[in-house]
């Protein structure tokens, strides 16, 4: 897709570099939104929710269904676009949030006292179930998706460094959501209950925190973030919906969470942007970059983990009294 030649030195080279960074940041913003769902859930019940990528995929499906129902087949603009995007984000967030809570209730909560591997296998099972239902419903192929955004460039330097409306939309939405999430977690009663439960569930419960409600709330938030990410991904980058989208995307987002330090909210955001940028740069600068980028992303992960096994912002020694 973006098979650019190896960058030459000079201004053109710098613009190429900027463009690769921009692509990285927009992709990274979406990874970060999904990575937050992995990290929130891991933080509170130490489960790697392998179904999370597929919850994200269901967000893309909901986006597609709504767009079709609204009869939109091509680019729209102005306030109409803003209204449609707002509707999509709310609908997909609610859908994915409720889906995630349902999964927790049915598949994970009954296994909460089981050995660690049991819920992990359950998560893998849920992942396949979500994929298979989508495949049954939508078929095995990718379904093309109309690009909603006008291709007008806001910034265009020599056709090399180009910033479009959709780039702004992705980054602004992601930042607003992350800001709201951090306010929620740091400054509110329910956010404090989440953090207390993550650190010592039994002590939190003895302080009156309802563990089941708090864990459900965490899944609700994680699902809602995946839903918002799914809308952004579908309308601005993917160009298609596909039952298998969640697999690779989920792995990338999970990698982002691990890179940043799983369980750490800031780490998920940092990891998301880093993975996006590493991917953007390897696509731009490596021969066959669009093929090799996956290997590079995971290579970076391994390298980071060798030197910092807990990720960039992860606690060095987790204190679980």
């Amino acid at each position: 897709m973006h098979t650019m030649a190896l960058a030459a030195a000079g201004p053109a080279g710098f613009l190429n570099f900027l463009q690769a960074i921009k692509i990285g940041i927009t992709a990274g913003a979406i990874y970060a939104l999904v990575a937050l769902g992995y990290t929130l859930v891991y933080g509170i019940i130490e489960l790697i929710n392998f179904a999370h990528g597929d919850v994200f995929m269901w967000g893309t499906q909901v986006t597609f269904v709504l767009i079709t129902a609204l009869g939109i087949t091509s680019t729209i603009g102005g306030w109409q676009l803003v209204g449609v995007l707002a509707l999509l984000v709310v609908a997909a967030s609610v859908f994915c949030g409720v889906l995630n809570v349902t999964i927790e209730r049915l598949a994970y909560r009954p296994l909460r006292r089981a050995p660690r591997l049991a819920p992990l296998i359950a998560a893998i099972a849920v992942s396949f179930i979500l994929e298979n239902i989508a495949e049954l419903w939508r078929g095995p192929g990718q379904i093309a998706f109309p690009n909603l955004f006008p291709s007008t460039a806001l910034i265009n330097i020599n056709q090399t460094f180009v910033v479009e409306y959709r780039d702004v939309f992705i980054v602004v939405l992601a930042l607003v959501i992350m800001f709201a999430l951090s306010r929620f977690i740091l400054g509110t009663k329910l956010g404090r209950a989440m953090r207390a439960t993550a650190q010592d569930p039994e002590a939190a419960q003895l302080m009156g925190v309802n563990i089941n409600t708090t864990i459900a709330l965490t899944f609700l938030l994680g699902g809602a973030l995946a839903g918002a990410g799914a809308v952004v991904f579908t309308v601005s980058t993917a160009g298609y919906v596909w039952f298998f989208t969640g697999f690779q995307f989920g792995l990338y987002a999970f990698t982002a969470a691990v890179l940043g330090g799983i369980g750490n909210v800031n780490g998920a955001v940092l990891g998301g942007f880093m993975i996006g940028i590493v991917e953007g740069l390897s696509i731009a600068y490596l021969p066959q970059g669009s093929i090799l980028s996956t290997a590079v992303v995971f290579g970076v992960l391994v390298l980071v983990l060798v030197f910092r096994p807990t990720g960039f912002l992860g606690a060095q020694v987790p204190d679980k009294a």
Partner: protein
Amino acid sequence: MANDDVLLQLSGVTRTFGGLTAVDGVDLTVRRGQIYSIIGPNGAGKTTVFNLITGIYRPTSGDVTLDGNSIVGYTPDRVLRAGVARTFQNIRLFNNMTVLENVLVGQHVRFPGDLISIVFHLPNYNRAERAARARAIELLGFFGPSMVALQDEYALNLSYADRRRVEVARALGSNPKLLMLDEPTAGMNDAETAEAVGYIQALRRDFGVTILLIEHKLQVTMGLSDRIAVLDYGKKIAEGLPDEIRTNELVIEAYLGRKAAI
């Protein structure tokens, strides 16, 4: 005394773990306004009794009532709602949260805040949050201005004695009827211990709470308690006024060994 004086009652409470009987048919009657101590050698089942009251464990048999209502089978958060708050022998603060946040978690059940009013910043929630913060500072103020000054410090960075104080402030946040302190002077030197004795008495006076105490240091227990129960191997071997316990032969034998005197 009239029966409504009784705040907490354990009747024949037994708890077994596999073949081990950790608590064996224990009866306790804690009256409103008392400072009641449970003493006994290590492994006597004192902390297990606390865990049975707070819903961490369910009694194998027997009943636990608070204000005359059975609380057996309550989850720990329901027991807290019913009016029982506790501290821990091995201090369990939320280390990655600030002192103020720890005390705010303690108030979790005492101020409203559902998801909707939080997300939409409804005025009732904002008011409740402000009131909770003011209350948290008031509770820290009980231990003097130096604790208030530590409000934004992470719990992890506090001195041992300060961590114990924050745990008490956190427990008070829920306005408990019964405050259960698990070895509140463990690991403290004599000066700190004396200060702790002072604040435990002040807790009853200032907050009107009934206090149930596990304590190892006998001088602390004897000076503080209205009543003392002695556990040994999960059984209650004696109960009475401090002076009665001090001179009880069974207690001296079980708890101190024959050579020691209290």
